[in-house]
């Protein structure tokens, strides 16, 4: 199956979505920075939570989307599922890295170290490596159909692996020290966090729309070039 036509672009709707995203992210950041007081124990650095948690949420959401799109691709063999999967994987890698960097910045003043072998932290880093592998395989596979099929397989195997990695690291760490428990967030902190979660989820939808369109265009160019190499278009 090939993508012969670019989908009708809808610049008006995409721009509207972009504007709404910008507003909501700005509101979330303003609320996180100015409206709520700093944490009594951790101080200002605790405000990283309002970006860190949404970034981690988008990382998990992305890799779930990669999994679903990979399954759909292998069942239906429609290249659009593959393009959605790669869009989600790229966005997921970006937000996983963001979550790791922010966690590290928070960890230095709070725990005293940039890195600790906390189960969630370690699993997130391993998850990042799995999906970087997914993207690198794509860049090394030339045939679009094989690229889609192989990366879909990696998307599925990787998704099955992540919970097992988490359990094994959890087990490994609990033998030495209890894992850091999730901090309970209460009151106005919770509302600001929910606002930021909503803003980032909207940002995710916007990025997916944009990235998917780019993927379709890139695929379109690739197909034109392939047919030209065959000599059908000159």
């Amino acid at each position, binding site marked *: 199956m090939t993508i012969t036509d670019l989908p009708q672009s809808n610049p008006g709707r995409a721009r509207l979505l972009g504007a709404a995203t910008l507003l909501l992210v700005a509101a979330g950041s303003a609320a996180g920075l100015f409206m709520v007081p700093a944490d009594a124990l951790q101080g200002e650095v605790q405000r990283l939570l309002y970006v860190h948690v949404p970034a981690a949420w988008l990382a998990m959401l992305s890799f779930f989307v990669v999994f679903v799109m990979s399954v759909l691709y*292998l069942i239906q063999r429609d290249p659009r599922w593959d393009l959605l999967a790669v869009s989600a994987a790229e966005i997921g890698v970006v937000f996983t890295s963001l979550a790791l960097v922010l966690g590290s910045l928070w960890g230095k003043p709070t725990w005293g170290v940039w890195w600790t072998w906390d189960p969630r932290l370690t699993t997130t880093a*391993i998850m990042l*490596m*799995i999906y*970087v*592998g997914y993207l*690198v*395989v794509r860049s*090394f*596979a*030339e045939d679009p159909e*094989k690229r889609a*099929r*192989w990366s879909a*397989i*990696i998307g*599925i*195997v*990787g998704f*099955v*692996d992540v919970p*097992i*990695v988490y*359990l*094994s*690291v959890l*087990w*490994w760490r609990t*033998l030495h020290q209890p894992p850091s428990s999730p901090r309970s967030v209460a009151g106005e902190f919770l509302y600001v966090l929910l606002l930021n979660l909503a803003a980032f989820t909207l940002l995710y939808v916007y990025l997916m729309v944009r990235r998917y369109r780019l993927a379709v265009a890139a695929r379109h160019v690739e197909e034109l070039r392939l047919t030209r190499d065959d000599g059908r278009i000159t």
Partner: protein
Amino acid sequence: MKSSLALRTWAILWKDLLIELRTKQSFSAMVFFAALVLFLFGFAIGPDAATLSRLGGGLLWIAIAFTGMLSLGRTFQSEEVAGGLDGLRMYPGEIRAIYLGKLLTNFSMLVVLEVVLVPVAAVLLQLEPWDRFPLFVGITLLGTFGFSVVGTFYASLTQHLRARELMLPLLLFPALVPVFLGAVNGTTLALAGDPLDRIGGWIRLLIAFDIIFFVVCVWIFPLVLEE
């Protein structure tokens, strides 16, 4: 149908082992490479016997993983000449036999390697695996099987990629984190003693990983080889 799957698997395993036996291409090189890795650990960590034997389980598994990676990369090399893989694929019957045959080849190669490597490691790193030897052997086999299951699968997936020598470890090592944790901790407990009886958990983890990934890999393998 069942017997045809077993027969085909056996034929591929036998063919690969026969090639290995007649050419002895890689096995001796693998053994020396693994011993070399152990020597490098000695140089990196220092000759202190207590430190080396305390780290023994981890060092042994890194040596097995690195050597196994070289061995996995060669899984489909023998099929490259004269369209060997296309030939295998065109035989009637279950295509999963290719995966099972290659998996058993890799597994047996690694087990033979370990038979040589473990005594060498025991001497170099001053390990004492003999007290709880059945436990030690069981954990080693479970870890090696998990390594071979995922390794053979990703070797078949990366065989046609550019830069496959780089891609195979990049995909394989993150996926194998549970196997490394289970095997290293289990081996360490089997070597040093297990007063708190924690080894059972690691064995269950290895068994669960082996079963889950064996099922997943066997199930989706035909998609890898599709043309």
